[in-house]
């Protein structure tokens, strides 16, 4: 009778976890909102930050530009993603596996790297496409100019259409052929069936993908900074960055970040409430077979379109980036005397900054992955086993960063933890903490899914035989979760290695990471070294992704 559990230790765990989550998520967001209403010097409440942030025409213009960018990217992503998804999931188009792989490739390429590829391709005069155009037609000037809103939209769309693709294929693979047969038997042809039955059935998924593309586009920093700034226009993210130029105006930045935050929250709310209620998102035609639609001769046209999209997203940018990485001067084109390994040698052995950046990137990303998985695992355990009342609060907090754009999160972290007493600005700690917060939702969804798949009876069997809860976790739960945790680790690690939008606000001179380094190099116009560094990042990512494939299976990137 002495060992009664009057004071349950899990209560302390709960308090500890909620403390960590408040530190990581609630504090930065609260600080963000508060400082947007504070006078910089005195800390008194004021609306002047908002007046300052929105009182200027060019600031409002940037806001409008962002909206235009998001809408354009969403529309173009749909144009790229939906036909490809349909062709891959439901038709007899050739080379479907290859197209899937290329779309996955487009997913892996960081948007800022794609943007650099497109600068090399469609720079006003020197860009490859323009040179080809001039050579073919003898025209005075090039046809394309990447430094424009249209250019920016294309560049971002080719990296974000995989969201639409993944959502739509996922839904299409659930639509039973019987749905289509029912239309066929009533006299509808293939085309009519596709447009009247199949596509409407997966419309919620398409809209879901559209929303993600839109949000991705408006929150992005790298690609807009590389393209919009030389084109002399601003979007919200680049404008926010301007507020961090000397003198740093965090309070105004906070005020100016509000629309981004609110739009994101609103969009996710929209997706959940409006679309979630339409029952047909889960059109799990039970056991119904899924046949492919025969396209006849059109299948080659379909393949042509798919290859065209893949060319825009992967082949062309990767081709010119590879060329630049191995070239003495990228403008001199493909010739043997232009070939060199000097760029790689320079990065890996000569330039200490680049070496540090590479090491920092992988160390921070690794630390982030461990921190995010550890934390989310503890929370997933408490939540799925319902150890304490109100455990759902923990789950909610864990998923909350999902609706916070990286750039907004970074400003929140800056506002909360850059000033004393913590004074974390420019330290590795603040980067790892911000990354951990940013990728906590990914880690949590994976951990919780893994946890749910394990019958609690497995643990109860340990306890009834006399083992403590900790022993059950160590001897049974941990070994069973190993595989899914490895997958979750990679899922956090990969995006962390390429994260730019939150890093750019929080790095100090000694904590630069590859993504920031790439951004700095682009400002110097040193595209050869930059491409080489990008290559290194990409190859490392590919190797890790391949390991992930082997360990977890093909769908691991899609699962979050």
């Amino acid at each position: 009778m002495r060992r009664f559990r009057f004071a349950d230790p899990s209560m302390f765990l709960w308090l500890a976890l909620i403390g960590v989550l408040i530190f990581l998520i609630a504090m930065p967001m609260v600080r963000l909102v508060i400082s947007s209403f504070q006078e910089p010097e005195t800390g008194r409440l004021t609306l002047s930050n908002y007046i300052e942030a929105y009182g200027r025409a060019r600031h409002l213009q940037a806001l409008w530009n962002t909206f235009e960018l998001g809408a354009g990217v969403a529309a173009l992503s749909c144009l790229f993603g939906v036909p490809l998804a349909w062709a891959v999931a439901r038709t007899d188009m050739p080379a479907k596996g290859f197209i899937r792989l290329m779309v996955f490739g487009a997913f892996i390429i960081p948007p800022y790297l794609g943007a650099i590829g497109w600068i090399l391709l469609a720079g006003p005069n020197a860009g490859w496409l323009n040179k080809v155009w001039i050579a073919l037609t003898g025209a005075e000037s090039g046809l394309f100019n990447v430094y424009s809103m249209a250019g920016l939209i294309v560049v971002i769309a080719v990296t974000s259409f995989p969201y639409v693709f993944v959502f739509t294929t996922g839904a299409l693979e659930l639509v039973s052929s019987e749905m289509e047969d029912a239309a066929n038997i009533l006299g509808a042809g293939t085309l009519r069936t596709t447009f009247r039955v199949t596509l409407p059935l997966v419309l919620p998924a398409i809209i879901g993908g559209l929303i993600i593309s839109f949000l991705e586009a408006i929150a992005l920093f790298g690609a807009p900074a590389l393209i919009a700034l030389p084109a002399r226009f601003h979007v919200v993210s680049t404008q926010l960055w301007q507020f961090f130029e000397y003198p740093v105006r965090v309070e105004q930045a906070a005020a100016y970040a509000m629309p981004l935050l609110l739009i994101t929250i609103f969009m996710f709310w929209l997706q959940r409430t409006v679309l979630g209620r339409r029952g047909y998102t889960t059109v799990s035609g039970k056991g119904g077979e899924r046949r492919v639609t025969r396209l006849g001769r059109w299948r080659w046209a379909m393949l042509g379109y798919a290859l065209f999209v893949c060319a825009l997203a992967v082949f062309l940018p990767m081709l010119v980036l590879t060329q630049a990485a191995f070239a003495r001067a990228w403008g001199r084109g493909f010739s043997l005397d232009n070939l060199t390994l000097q760029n790689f040698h320079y990065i890996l052995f000569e330039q200490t900054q680049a070496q540090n950046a590479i090491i920092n990137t992988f160390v921070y990303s690794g630390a982030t992955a461990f921190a995010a998985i550890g934390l989310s695992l503890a929370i997933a355990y408490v939540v799925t086993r319902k150890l304490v009342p109100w455990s759902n609060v923990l789950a909610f907090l864990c998923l909350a960063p999902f609706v916070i754009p990286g750039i907004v999160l970074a400003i929140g972290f800056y506002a909360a933890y850059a000033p004393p007493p913590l004074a974390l600005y420019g330290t590795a700690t603040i980067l790892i903490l911000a990354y951990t917060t940013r990728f906590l939702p990914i880690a949590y969804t994976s951990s919780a899914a893994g946890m749910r798949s394990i019958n609690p009876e497995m643990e109860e069997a340990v306890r009834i035989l006399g083992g403590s809860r900790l022993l059950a976790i160590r001897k049974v739960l941990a070994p069973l979760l190993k595989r899914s945790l490895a997958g979750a680790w990679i899922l956090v690690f990969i995006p962390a290695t390429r994260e730019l939008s939150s890093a750019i606000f929080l790095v100090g001179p000694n904590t630069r990471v590859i993504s920031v380094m790439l951004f700095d190099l682009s400002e110097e116009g040193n595209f050869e070294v930059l491409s080489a560094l990008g290559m290194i990042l990409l190859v490392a990512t590919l190797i890790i992704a391949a390991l992930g494939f082997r360990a977890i299976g093909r769908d691991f990137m899609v699962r979050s």
Partner: protein
Amino acid sequence: MSKLVLRGIEKHYGDTPAVSGLNLALNEGEFVSLLGPSGCGKTTTLRMIAGFIDPTAGTIEMNGQLLSSPSGALPPEKRQMSMIFQSYAVWPNMTVQQNVAFGLELRKLPREEVRRRVGEMLEVVHMGHLAARYPAELSGGQQQRVALARAIVIQPQVLLLDEPLSNLDANLREEMRFEIRRLHDEFRITTVYVTHDQAEAMVTSDRIAVMNQGRIEQVDDPHTLYTRPKTRFVAGFIGRTNFIEGTCNGAQVEFGSFAVPLASLEDAPSSGKATFSVRPQSMRLSRARLPDGVPQAAVTIAERAYLGEFWDYVAAPENGVRLRVTAPPLEIYQVGESAWLAFDPKQMTPIL
């Protein structure tokens, strides 16, 4: 002294009671089943005994020591019990050998003894040749045997089984019923067995506690439970039965189409109305009228079905009641045929 005592156990989830006012005492070495339909609170009761759930009210004692009370409870790992789960919960990351050895290792037994006892236990459940296998390489029945071995090898104070056979196919289930009883006869571990299958309970148990809506309706050995059900629910849940209404007038009980002397009925009230349970196989059909002393009614055959082992007839006396009667395969009656239906007063049980 009783081994395990549940006294006034209640469990509420919000306002809905899952278990209410439950009393049960098990003797040392006794095998008791908790039998009832799904949602009757039997698994909740078992998990309260195990310590995974704390009761809202009432106490649980083992060997005279308090295990659970509303003010606190001993955690499962301190109760020296073991349990067999519906999913078996055989740990897939450990071999059969490691699974069975787990509890012994926790008890810090010498390595040699662990090995010996695991070996012996695996022989008892006929799994000795599969000791090095992983659970994924075993069939459902084999996993079940591993779970049994793992639970029994530690010689627990109390063994708990939570519908252990519900995931097996029919043949295997029948085999495992006898297996569980055999193991109980061999080790004599005090056992609580939760099931919704009456045949399972009757094969394995010394006593059965029939549960309904969070309460125990009756606790008795299988034979008494079947022949002398106390409540309408028990009579209907254990086997099939007919309910007939009778009026007692001092000397005999009047059933409309026939009457039975009060003296020949056990426990019948001497006056007023009463309901009796009459099992289908306790009545006999006959073409000829039987001698006068036998209570009997003139009936018409209303329905019939041949089930191979017996006939299933519905016999209708004149007063509008319909009685289910079973008869051996060669006693063939046509639908619409008239017959006499004889009753055996010893097999008519008044119920509450």
